[in-house]
């Protein structure tokens, strides 16, 4: 377990030091929201559905960028080989990378939520508290998926293009559930009404964290 803590601490330290990833994520989220506001037109801007949708679009874009970054640091000087060579289990490495990606995404989400409230004329009220767990579930699922996939796409030609192509179809169920639940939360509905959506998101998270944990060793390392 010391390996897990060491890797996570190292990633957070690297990120705090350069800061470029987090800033880029926040900037990207904001720009995506701006584009959507203009694209959807003034009439839509008061709709809770549009706000929820825009928020998730921004999150997915940011999440893809964030996942890439988590594994990018290991490509400098072949550091990934140093990790594979060490007694560290590939599964533990996955867990650490997943946590790092989740933290980046969570930070970006906070920024995106603030901007969403401002741009879509909503309020900072109790609905934020209902929104939080939904976004957490979404971030876990997306980080789990993207960490696994970016280990693949990082090592193939055209890898950057390939990550969204692979990730988005697979993420669809969590995306549908997340947007629906978010819209419900923002319009003041109680948790019971979103029960089904939350179940889907939880199932997705459990499934993909497990899959990533088991499959990561096949995907990392090698030639």
């Amino acid at each position: 377990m010391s390996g897990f803590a060491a890797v996570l601490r190292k990633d957070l330290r690297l990120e705090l030091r350069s800061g470029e990833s987090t800033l880029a994520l926040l900037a990207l989220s904001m720009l995506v929201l701006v584009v959507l506001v203009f694209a959807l037109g003034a009439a839509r801007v008061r709709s809770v559905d549009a706000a929820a949708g825009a928020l998730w679009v921004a999150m997915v874009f940011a999440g893809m960028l964030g996942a890439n970054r988590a594994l990018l640091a290991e490509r400098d000087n072949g550091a990934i080989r140093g990790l594979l060579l060490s007694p560290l289990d590939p599964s533990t490495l996955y867990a650490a990378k997943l946590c790092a990606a989740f933290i980046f995404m969570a930070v970006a989400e906070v920024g995106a939520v603030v901007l969403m409230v401002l741009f879509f004329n909503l309020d900072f009220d109790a609905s934020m508290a209902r929104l939080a767990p939904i976004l957490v579930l979404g971030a876990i699922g997306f980080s789990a998926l993207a960490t696994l996939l970016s280990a693949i796409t990082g090592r193939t030609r055209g890898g950057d293009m390939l990550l969204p192509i692979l990730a988005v179809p697979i993420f669809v169920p969590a995306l549908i559930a997340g947007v629906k639940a978010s819209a419900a939360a923002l319009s003041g509905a109680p948790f019971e009404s979103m029960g089904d959506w939350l179940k889907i998101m939880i199932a997705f998270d459990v499934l993909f964290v497990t899959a990533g944990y088991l499959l990561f060793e096949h995907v990392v390392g090698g030639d």
Partner: protein
Amino acid sequence: MNNPTIRNWLGFSTLALMLASLFMVFDYVPPDAEMGIAQLIFYFHVPLAWVAFASFGLVAIAGIFYLWLGDQLWDDLGYAAAETGMVFCTLMIVAGSIWAKPIWGTWWTWDSRLTMTFILWLMYGGYLMLRASADDTPQVARFGAVIGIVAAMDVPIVIVSVRLWRTIHPAVLVTKQGTHGLEDPRMVWTLLVSLTAFTLLWAWLLMLRFTQLRTRSRMAWLAGRIALATAAASDPK
């Protein structure tokens, strides 16, 4: 697996059953009272769906075996299943679109089944793009196996979520009819024949492609052995 006799047998029986199926659909079975002639596409759409999903399942199963046993044979099978499945999935989307136009007046609808098919199609596309954009090394084969497994695991959740998504908006469109309401036994028979015909077609195409990939793998391996043997023969002694 490579037996040409089996392949030919498969090919001919496919042809026979396909012809039978066409006859049954266009001449034998009565069209649905409500939807008219356009409903007939149902007898092609359902088998196509079964084959597209089954092929995807095969990609995942082959992937599991490849990761476990490491034999190139499983990767060849998975890749062949992905390519074959993609063909059928594309046909299914096209068929769905052709069916949608006379029934609903649009070329595309977001009903749960079409949406599910489209997502499956995207997953197939992702797998094939991944394989195409990288060399054929064991590591890339492992990538493909993992993608196949992960995507296949996702399919049940996608089905559930898309169905839930659509039932919340019943006003948008009516979901396509399922296999309920097949009152006429002729309909049942036609469907069964059609299912068998498409399954055979799938098996036949899969076998063709699989044989090709196996041959390619074997040749690569042989080339490696020849290079080694040539070097050994010209070693100074």
